[in-house]
């Protein structure tokens, strides 16, 4: 069959199945097995078993449940609340300080938790009421929490990067390193924007009343709460970046480290163990099966010769490689409007990665561009995950319309960030090059 027709048939039937609400994992796997049976024959069925086995004995993927678990333990031990209390004390007379501090906390949470949304939920519960009570404009307060919360997949550890590493064969350590500077850059851009905006329009984020400002001693005492999470983050990332351990081993160390943190904070209870282990299992099961579905799908697709044909077709096209890259970014943005980010990863990457490397682009760079792009998808309707998280926690007088409005300046900042990262690949590649090459 002509590879272009095959591509169309497989993708359209998969999208049609997804539209019926069939879980994405089974839409991918179902189309894979049908295409295999009809176009390849019963011998393709062996491939399903080997796809499952590939996941079952994969050393890289072990890091996924471990990092998820580490994140849940830290989340359940209320570190976010302590961090915000510290921000309150340190805010002083600076306009917009609570907002800037909240973005910084989101970055810290992103460095502890490998999934997106965790920071949006906890900051939505903790920081949002605190900001609104102190007369922050609801648009800036709601917007900054969503933008900050979206940093989760960009700042390592990141589930998304581990799965990209699994698909592309790029080392997870390099991907983690690639996310550090872009993550800090975006967080810095949000903070600068909030600071400048509140300086010009003080009603957006007024300074704290004098009575609420922390004293010097309180400030020093508040720093102590930062100590444990900071140690853990530096230890885990240090293990990976210095090459002492593999990301998987670092994840195991991080998981145990998180338990020790919880114990030191006297939060290590049976209840916490339950609240951390059960959701970890649920998320792991989802990840495992979507990976198996995607591996089956792409193995059949590749086995029928489509990947190679599409690749040589795209690489042989007489257009500027940048054109193809930008079309890919637009396709991410388009799919992101109605589809889950992990689904997009497993759907597009098996086809895109060979093309990208064939065109001479760096796969680490491409991964980070994808993740920054997905952050915009989190914040843009109709399927913006963070918008839903936000809606679940905002007070009643903040409408869905307010939430949509609130993200506009931040989406513009993300777009500027994405363009900067495309124009200056060094921002992404400097750290991985220095550490690993």
């Amino acid at each position, binding site marked *: 069959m002509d590879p272009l027709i095959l591509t169309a048939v497989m993708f359209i039937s998969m999208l049609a199945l997804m539209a019926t609400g*069939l879980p994405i994992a089974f839409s991918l796997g*179902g189309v894979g097995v049908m295409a295999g049976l009809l176009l390849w024959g019963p011998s393709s069925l*062996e491939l399903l078993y080997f796809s499952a086995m590939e996941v079952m004995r994969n050393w890289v993927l072990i890091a996924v449940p471990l990092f998820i678990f580490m994140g849940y333990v830290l989340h359940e031990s209320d570190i976010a609340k302590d961090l915000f209390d510290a921000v309150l004390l340190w805010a002083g007379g600076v306009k917009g300080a609570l907002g800037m501090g909240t973005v910084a906390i989101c970055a810290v949470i992103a460095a502890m938790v490998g999934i997106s949304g965790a920071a949006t939920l906890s900051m939505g519960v903790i920081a949002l009421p605190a900001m609104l009570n102190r007369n922050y404009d609801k648009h800036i307060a709601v917007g900054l929490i969503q933008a900050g919360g979206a940093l989760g997949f960009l700042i390592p550890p990141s589930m998304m990067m581990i799965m990209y590493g699994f698909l592309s064969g790029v080392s997870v350590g390099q991907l983690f390193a690639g996310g550090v500077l872009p993550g800090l850059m975006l967080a810095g851009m949000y903070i600068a924007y909030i600071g400048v905006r509140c300086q010009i329009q003080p009603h957006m984020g007024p300074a704290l009343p004098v009575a609420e400002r922390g004293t010097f001693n309180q400030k020093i005492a508040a720093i102590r709460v930062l100590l444990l999470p900071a140690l853990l983050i530096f230890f885990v990332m240090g293990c990976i970046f210095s090459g002492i351990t593999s990301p998987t081993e670092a994840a195991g160390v991080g998981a145990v480290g998180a338990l020790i943190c919880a114990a030191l904070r006297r939060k290590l209870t049976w209840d916490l163990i339950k609240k951390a282990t059960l959701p970890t299992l649920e998320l*792991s099961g989802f990840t*495992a099966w979507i990976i198996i579905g995607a591996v089956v799908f792409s193995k059949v697709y590749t086995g029928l010769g489509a990947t190679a044909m599409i690749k040589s077709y795209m690489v042989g096209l007489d257009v500027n490689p940048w054109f193809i890259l930008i079309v890919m970014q637009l396709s991410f943005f388009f799919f992101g409007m109605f589809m889950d980010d992990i*689904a997009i990863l497993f759907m597009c990457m098996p086809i895109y990665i060979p093309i990208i490397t064939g065109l001479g682009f760096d796969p680490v760079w491409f991964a980070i561009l994808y993740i920054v792009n997905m952050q915009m998808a989190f914040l843009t309707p109709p399927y913006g995950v963070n918008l839903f998280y936000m809606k679940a926690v905002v007070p009643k007088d903040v409408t869905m319309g307010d939430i949509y409005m609130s993200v506009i300046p931040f989406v513009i900042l993300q777009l500027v960030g994405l363009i900067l990262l495309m124009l200056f690949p060094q921002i992404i590649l400097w750290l991985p090059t220095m550490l690993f090459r």
Partner: protein
Amino acid sequence: MRRKLSLVVRKIDSLSVWSGRILAGLILVMSGVIVYEVVARYLFNSPTIWGLELATMIFGTYILGAGAWTWYRGGHVRMDVFYNHWSKRTRAVIDAFTFPLVLLFLGVIFWKSSVYGIEAVRVMEHSHTVWGPPVYHWKMTLPLAIFLMMLQGLADFTRNATLAITGKEL
């Protein structure tokens, strides 16, 4: 009939819940094994020959076994752009219609993994590493995990079919 069906479906649910409770604890064992390996290597300079392999085996059981629990919790993410706007009954009808495809997908893996698993048990397969642990029981956890998942799927299918046909929930 209806009561019997409902009883069976709830039994399957509780089976998934129990599989989840047991598997959930494995994450602690897995972290423990990995940390032991790292500590043994760097602090005592005596890396184990079994650390990596044991962690991988636990992981395999953990992550594939999670399927039934995830299904029970509704954690297999779907694209809900349209799904959310449908009535419960419409969803049940459509889910019942797409289920055979899921059953085919899982059924094939179940069949193939049973064939390979039984063969592994027959020859008492051991791993080809220095440590060389038995792997036949581990290979049998894959068909077991998928069996649990198919059961949970059938339970949901029964619920959906009942709602679709009679208009009443089971």
